């Protein structure tokens, strides 16, 4: 994006790594060409996964010494093609190929109030923002939601640093985040039109917040978010893509995206962001057997419900919870441009 899209590739040396929470590793990288990473930035890493070069993005949690030390934190993805597993295997002294800081989630200046909402590993995108807001003396609230304290990275650190400004919600303690009351409280406060929310987390949480935000008629531009591009309404399943134009069907494994599977099968498709934001990879849906798990933020709610198009980079077909154990994988029939 325009704030800083120049991405150059460089080498980064792993200077430290350790276990931060269950399934989350903290990795400190020392890049060749250090540049300070502002809050909201991420770095892209080029990983060799089973012979395929894949790009994976990780938010910069901390930038020290003018960017000479960049801390990232990686959650092990349970059904994964291996990016996060590869990251978890890194050791001190290893060298990775990485970009400089890329900004696609900049923190604004001058809002009356800031509400940061992190679901799970999404906290990585918000730690540096919270630190900056604290230094600025801004009015901010940090909302942390997770499945269990054991897996919530930076929890103790954040509570210690931000004190009363932190609200913690943990599923297995039955203290669940109530989206409606969170957004309702913002909407009812006098500074509502000048409150900005920054969120990063599972797409289901972000969809719920977005619906509530719109229902309360809060200004849409004040709702900022970043998608990590890999969570959906249902767990990933294997499914099938039918392409009548090409007289072919392609199977998409649960550890692959539809876009990757089509490309690997030699189908020429157009894409840009690969994380469900730009809509370039949008294609027409002719038929669905099962459900579409859209996972993008490009299509509106109505467009998603219409089942007439999807974004190849993130969408999946699924049986979902309603048809557990169904023998046939879900299928989607597409018309490619």
């Amino acid at each position, binding site marked *: 994006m325009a*704030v800083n899209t120049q991405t150059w590739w460089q080498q980064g040396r792993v200077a430290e790594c350790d276990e931060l929470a269950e399934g989350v590793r903290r990795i400190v990288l020392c890049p060749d060409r250090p540049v300070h990473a502002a809050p909201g930035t991420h770095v892209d890493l080029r990983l060799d996964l089973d012979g395929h070069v894949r790009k994976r993005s990780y938010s910069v949690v901390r930038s020290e010494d003018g960017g000479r030390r960049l801390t990232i934190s990686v959650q092990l993805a349970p059904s994964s093609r291996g990016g996060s597993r590869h990251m978890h295997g890194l050791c001190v002294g290893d060298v990775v190929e990485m970009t400089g800081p890329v900004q696609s989630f900049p923190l604004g200046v001058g809002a009356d109030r800031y509400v940061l909402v992190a679901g799970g590993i999404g906290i990585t995108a918000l730690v540096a923002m919270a630190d900056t807001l604290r230094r600025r003396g801004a009015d901010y609230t940090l909302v942390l939601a997770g499945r269990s304290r054991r897996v919530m990275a930076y929890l103790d650190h954040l509570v210690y640093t931000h004190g009363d400004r932190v609200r913690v919600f943990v599923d297995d303690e039955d203290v669940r985040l109530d989206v409606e009351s969170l957004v309702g409280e913002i909407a009812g406060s006098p500074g509502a039109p000048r409150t900005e929310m920054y969120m990063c987390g599972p797409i289901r949480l972000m969809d719920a917040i977005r619906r509530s935000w719109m229902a309360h008629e809060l200004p849409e*531009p004040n709702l900022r978010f970043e998608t990590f591009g890999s969570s959906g309404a249902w767990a990933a399943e294997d499914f099938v893509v039918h392409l009548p134009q090409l007289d072919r069907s392609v199977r998409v494994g649960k550890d692959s995206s539809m876009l990757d599977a089509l490309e690997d099968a030699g189908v020429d498709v157009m894409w840009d962001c690969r994380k469900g934001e730009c809509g370039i990879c949008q294609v027409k849906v002719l038929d669905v057997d099962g459900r579409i798990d859209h996972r993008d933020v490009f299509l509106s709610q109505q467009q998603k419900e219409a089942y007439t198009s999807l974004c190849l980079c993130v969408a999946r077909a699924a049986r979902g919870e309603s048809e557990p154990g169904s023998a046939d994988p879900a299928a989607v029939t597409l018309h490619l441009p």
Partner: protein
Amino acid sequence: MTTLDSPPVTAASKIFNFPRNAWYVAAWDHEVTAKQPLARTVAGRPLALWRNSDGRAVALADACWHRLAPLSKGKVLGDEIQCPYHGLRYNSAGRCTGMPAQETINPSAIVPSYPVVERYRYVWVWVGDPDLADPDTVPDMEQMDSPEWAGDGETIYAPCNYQLLLDNLMDLTHEEFVHSSSIGQDELSEAEFEVSHSDRGVTVTRWMRDIDAPPFWLKNMRDRFPGFEGKVDRWQIIHFEAPSTIRIDVGVAKAGTGAPEGDRSQGVNGFVMNTITPETARTSHYFWAFMRNYRLDSQTITTQLRQGVHGVFGEDEEMLAAQQQAIDANPDHEFYSLNIDAGGMWVRRILDRMLQAEGLPAAAAK
């Protein structure tokens, strides 16, 4: 205070770099309107400047998120600006508020919005780290909108590195040679001067006692003391404040009436207000004004002074453009310093430390 890993300050970089973490004047307040965006490059950053419906000035990067078309060629629509190319709209925070061809807004569609302060009849912007932008560090130019002073000024688009303008203003012996018909006189080079400095400021003081007033000052004396004849005590007190604001307290008083000791009642006093905004390494926006503290309600004097200074500064502009060309034509030649450059060299020292703090080299990149 030189340590092993910070090399001593170089004698004089010829194309001086500029700090980013600083307030620079982007425009006169009246240049920024709610009607039409203004394009101006400040410290290497192209900006689109406009006003919200509440009158607040806004500075956005002058490149649309989409395909980088200049927003300054777009339209101001209330509290938003619309890109002239495919119609994306942005609010004053730089956040995209509308994408005409789709039902949602891409979450990463943002252009940088820069902190803005309006003060002393100018719109100041901060293009560096926004978290360091403290409005209390806007350089002091209080004479610009004080009820005790009157005057006006202009902007010069100067085809030279901003440091050449600072050098020019920190040493006024050049008046004798460049401005001989208006304010120059022999005593300028001959008079002693004193230099003092602090962390962010440098002051150069020069008094010339019992001299003839040059034409510009004789006219000003006669505006206040009709028919004035005789000798004057003349002063020039140059106040620099980092990164690039120079106020020159200038004037003459009837000789021997106590002006050097602090009684300026028998004289005329002006403040030459200068603030320089680097545009690129080799071009600058030079905002100047001449303020006076006598006959405040005379628009005639305001106009005459503005025209007079316009003529004087035109002579500097010509010299500086020629100097920049000669610098570029002689890349293998260095600068040398004279004793008269002491003020300018302290300015460089302060700027050099600001640049070091930002991790920037003293010499600007091509």
